[in-house]
């Protein structure tokens, strides 16, 4: 079968962004060819009359609505699906994103406040996860960001988050 409709169908149904080589594996085609087809689809969807786009995100591809459609899409959902991060959550997330893996105490040292509740919320939202335990007394849990974090901020991968090489303590 023709590759393009297959790729289109996969980009549509997938819950998570799909990497080109994963698509290639599923569709039984070459990664290079898949990339070519994705570019074609991107070009087609980018035309003015279309409401969707092929988004490259979190190291993969996925169909999404175009940003211009947001006001109308919002009306459909009337905010039921949406949430914004609280200030505390955002700040905590910033620390974890830039310092991962970190313990709760590390975060609290930087923010100067307790973060138990916030960590729980962020975990529920699947923006952070436990990534292991620190080799230190009490073996405290280490936190890091998730794939969902990348999706939430529209990042392809963590490298896209500016990582200051110095300035770390």
């Amino acid at each position, binding site marked *: 079968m023709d590759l393009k409709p297959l790729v289109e169908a996969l980009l549509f149904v997938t*819950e998570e962004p799909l990497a080109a080589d994963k698509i290639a594996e599923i569709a039984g085609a070459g990664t290079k060819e898949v990339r070519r087809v994705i570019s074609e689809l991107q070009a087609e969807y980018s035309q003015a009359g279309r409401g969707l786009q092929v988004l490259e995100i979190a190291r993969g591809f996925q169909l999404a609505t175009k940003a211009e459609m947001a006001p109308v899409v919002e009306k459909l959902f009337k905010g039921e699906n949406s949430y914004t991060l609280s200030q505390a959550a955002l*700040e905590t997330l910033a620390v974890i994103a830039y310092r991962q893996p970190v313990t709760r105490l590390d975060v609290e040292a930087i923010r100067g406040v307790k973060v138990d509740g916030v960590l729980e919320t962020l975990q529920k939202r699947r923006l952070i996860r436990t990534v292991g335990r620190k080799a230190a007394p009490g073996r405290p849990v280490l936190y890091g960001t998730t794939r969902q974090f990348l999706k939430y901020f529209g990042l392809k991968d963590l490298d896209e988050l500016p990582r200051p*090489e110095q300035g770390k303590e």
Partner: protein
Amino acid sequence: MEYQVRLPVFEGPFALLFHLIEKAEVDIYDIPLAEITAQYLEHLQAMRDLDLEVASEFLVMAATLLKLKSRKLLPAVFTAEAEEGEALFSIESQEELVQRLLEYRYFRTVAEELRKCEQAQKRVYLRRLGGGTALVVNPEDELSAAGVTLPALLQAFRRLLAEQERQPQEVVAEEISVDKKMREIMRLLGRKNEGVDFLSLFPGRVAVHEIVATFFALLELVRRRKILLWQPDPLGSLVIMRRAKQGEGSKWI
């Protein structure tokens, strides 16, 4: 010597009866009751021989068939007799039996049609929305859908950091206050209609923490739809603008 006996499984007494009628190749309106009854009982016996549980419905039907058969032989004697309450069905005549069989057959045919619909629909997939907030689905997505410009924002940010790195700096572990940064940005934008250059938010020597706070403040303002990020040239610097009222402006992001 062992025999592997396989008995077809029937959904219920009507299904079994149907099978027997079809096998006998007789007209449903003219069932040879004695013959079919005998075969029906044989089948139940076979089930018992195989230690299969014979559901009560099958026994009720057996009783019904025997009743109808005997009525045929002795119509005058039995016609008026009231039957003990048979919960599932009470069939008083062969005509009635035929009606019930036809009705059952109708629904079996319909079920087959539904099976076809089911199979066809199984081949059609809808979008999976996972459990969480699908990025592309909710209003928040404007930020992610703005992924087109966000990488640009990040790139600019990275350049800025590279700049910072060339200059030694002392890190002060002060609390990041995104809130404060957001207020600062909005205050700055308040006075300017034409927008503010992205880089101007990051003056000469600031701690990484502050840059991070500014960065997240920008993200949050975009999310709250307070500001717009606009990149006039593909590789040029970003301009931050106070967002116009609903409707306008989304063309930028």
